[in-house]
């Protein structure tokens, strides 16, 4: 029983990070119909920028409270990523807005390579140790189930950020403009919405979330390097599709479900298949679930609202 509970904790933590990254994919897709494959790289840039900030802070003000240092690092990483998101949209994607769908998709893949290579030039090929400023000392809220403060922080921060985003999109004027642009940006423009600004803003918000996700990811595992964004990016994209791409609630649900399926899958796949499959099929297990969901619900778990887009 403790094992199952522990796997659920593991899954929730990983799923929260997936969800946060998935929001960036889904927001951009919802508005532009574009899959921004470079989004995972923004996560990496966020983590490495935060790392650089922390290293500088540790040199200048070694006595500063650890949490304050981390907060400053996040506050540096977010604007850097936001500017990066803005530039990506402005320089690469906006010019291709009227182009056939494949052109921006391939541009996004190229952007991903470009950012990885840039990061490799700046930070090198080595793995870096990311200072774990939130404690990783395990606690046992239930005997036998171990939870660390950093894991709790990840789940709480993700939940808060996601709640904030939902409020922004559903309750504010800006949110209404975003939804209008998503529905039909020509009509939205006719109604007086500055759609270019809204699209740019979508990229900026997504990149900001990615920066937070990057810092959380690096803090949890204590490691950062130039290729760290690729796998979480791919998983988050999967999560977005699982939940119904273009749908905010779907991205969150998809992230959490994917995290749980992976953890529980890795833990029980061997028992469930009577030893036929083992944990090297961990990733395949997640994709099988994705396949099954898409067969019965082609638009994802919560995807009915985008069915008219495709």
């Amino acid at each position, binding site marked *: 029983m403790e*094992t199952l509970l*522990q*796997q659920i904790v*593991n*899954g929730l*933590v*990983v799923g929260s990070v997936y969800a946060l990254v998935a929001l960036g994919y889904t927001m951009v897709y919802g508005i532009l119909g574009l899959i921004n494959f470079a989004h995972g790289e923004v996560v990496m840039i966020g983590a490495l920028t935060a790392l650089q900030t922390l290293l500088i802070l540790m040199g200048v003000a070694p006595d500063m409270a650890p949490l304050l240092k981390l907060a400053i690092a996040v506050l540096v990483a977010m604007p850097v990523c936001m500017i990066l998101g803005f530039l990506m949209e402005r320089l690469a994607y906006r010019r291709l807005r009227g182009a056939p769908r494949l052109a921006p998709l391939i541009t996004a893949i190229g952007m991903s390579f470009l950012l990885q290579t840039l990061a490799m030039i700046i930070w090198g090929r*080595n*793995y870096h*140790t990311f200072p*774990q400023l939130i404690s*990783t000392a*395990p606690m*046992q809220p239930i005997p036998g189930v*171990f939870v*660390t403060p950093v*894991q709790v922080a990840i789940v709480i921060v993700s939940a808060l950020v996601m709640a904030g985003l939902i409020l922004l999109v559903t309750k504010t004027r800006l949110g209404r403009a975003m939804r209008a642009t998503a529905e039909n940006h020509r009509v939205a423009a006719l109604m007086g919405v500055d759609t270019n600004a809204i699209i740019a803003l979508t990229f900026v918000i997504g990149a900001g979330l990615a920066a937070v996700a990057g810092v959380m*990811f690096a803090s949890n*595992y*204590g*490691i950062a*390097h130039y*290729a*760290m964004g*690729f*796998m979480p990016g791919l998983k988050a994209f999967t999560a977005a599709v699982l939940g119904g791409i273009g749908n905010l609630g779907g991205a969150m649900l998809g992230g959490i479900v994917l995290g749980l399926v*992976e*953890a*529980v*899958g*890795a*833990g029980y796949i061997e028992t469930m298949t009577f030893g036929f499959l*083992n*944990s*090297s099929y*961990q990733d395949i297990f997640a994709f099988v679930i994705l396949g099954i969901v898409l067969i019965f619900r082609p638009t994802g778990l919560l995807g009915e609202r985008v069915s008219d887009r495709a």
Partner: protein
Amino acid sequence: MKKTGIAIAIMGLGFGLMSGGVSAADMVVKLGHVGPLTGSISHLGKDNENGALLAIEEYNAKGVTIGGKTIKFEIMGEDDQADPRAGTTVAQRLVDAEVAGVVGHLNSGTTIPASRIYHQAGIPMISPSATNPKLTQQNYAGVFRTIANDVQQGGAIGKFATGTLGAKNIAIIDDRTAYGQGLADEVEKSAKATGGKIVAREFTNDKATDFMAILTKIKAQNPDVIFFGGMDAQAGPMVRQLKQLGINAKFMAGDGACSGEMLKLAGDALSGNTYCTQAGLPLDKMPGGKDFKDRYKKRFNLDVQIYAPYAYDAAAAMIEAMKVADSTSPAKYLPALKAISFQGVTGNVAFDAKGDIKEGAITVYQFKDGGWNPVP
């Protein structure tokens, strides 16, 4: 015409006899050495080259007579930049220069492709540091190594876990790479053979950072020892996650995680429960280690890095084989090299049928006082 031809022939014969007379004092025989002399592990490459150089200088000083001639050995040192392509290029260069044998290369990745070139040219090669089993599994007659391979390493890890650590239940994780999986399979075999029980065999990949799910599963099996076959980039976070999950089992890894990088990546999660292994003995534990250390220091004014004694023994093995065969021709001394047995710096140097060192030593290190310390 005919007369002059004969005259030239006679003159030539005369010169031949004369030069034969002169070169009785010094006939030059070239041995090749290859290692990375530029790049991030160039210090290790230079260390190997110095090891081989020390060996031939000592033999030159003692005087070696082969086929009635005094031989002067020379090193032809090449740089492979730890890059497989550069490795094959310089291998061809050594073959073209008709060296009598090659000490090198340093990395498995460069040694394996280069070994084919030496094999085709019929030139014996001895690597002082390449541990991948594939090198000798190619069944090339002239390929040897003076360091233990990963099969021997896996065997030693399994025995250490069940013996010294007294483990009954062992969990094994590998990263599904040729190195990680190969090493893990050997550990599993050896642990089973020495009375251990494999309670879990889990898998990850060489890009993963999250191991919580598989570690949670392993935790439920209550292993005494967890072995990971893979590199430091995964082993570091893995050790942190062991601690986060409150797993107290001992953690072991192979040479891929026996690095300074591992100390950084695992950070404060390391404890006396963390072990790793390296092929070879620490210098102080080698039979001729103490003396070698002093000679090396005196000659190069440098400290031995890691593999210099193995390069020394590799060069020595070739020269000893030439002495036994009474020939410096590769085809003639190769059979003698296969059968060689002598006391080298690192221990008894003798090769098995495949070309692996017979008594390959493996050292287990334990984390203590902020670094890796050999377990006595």
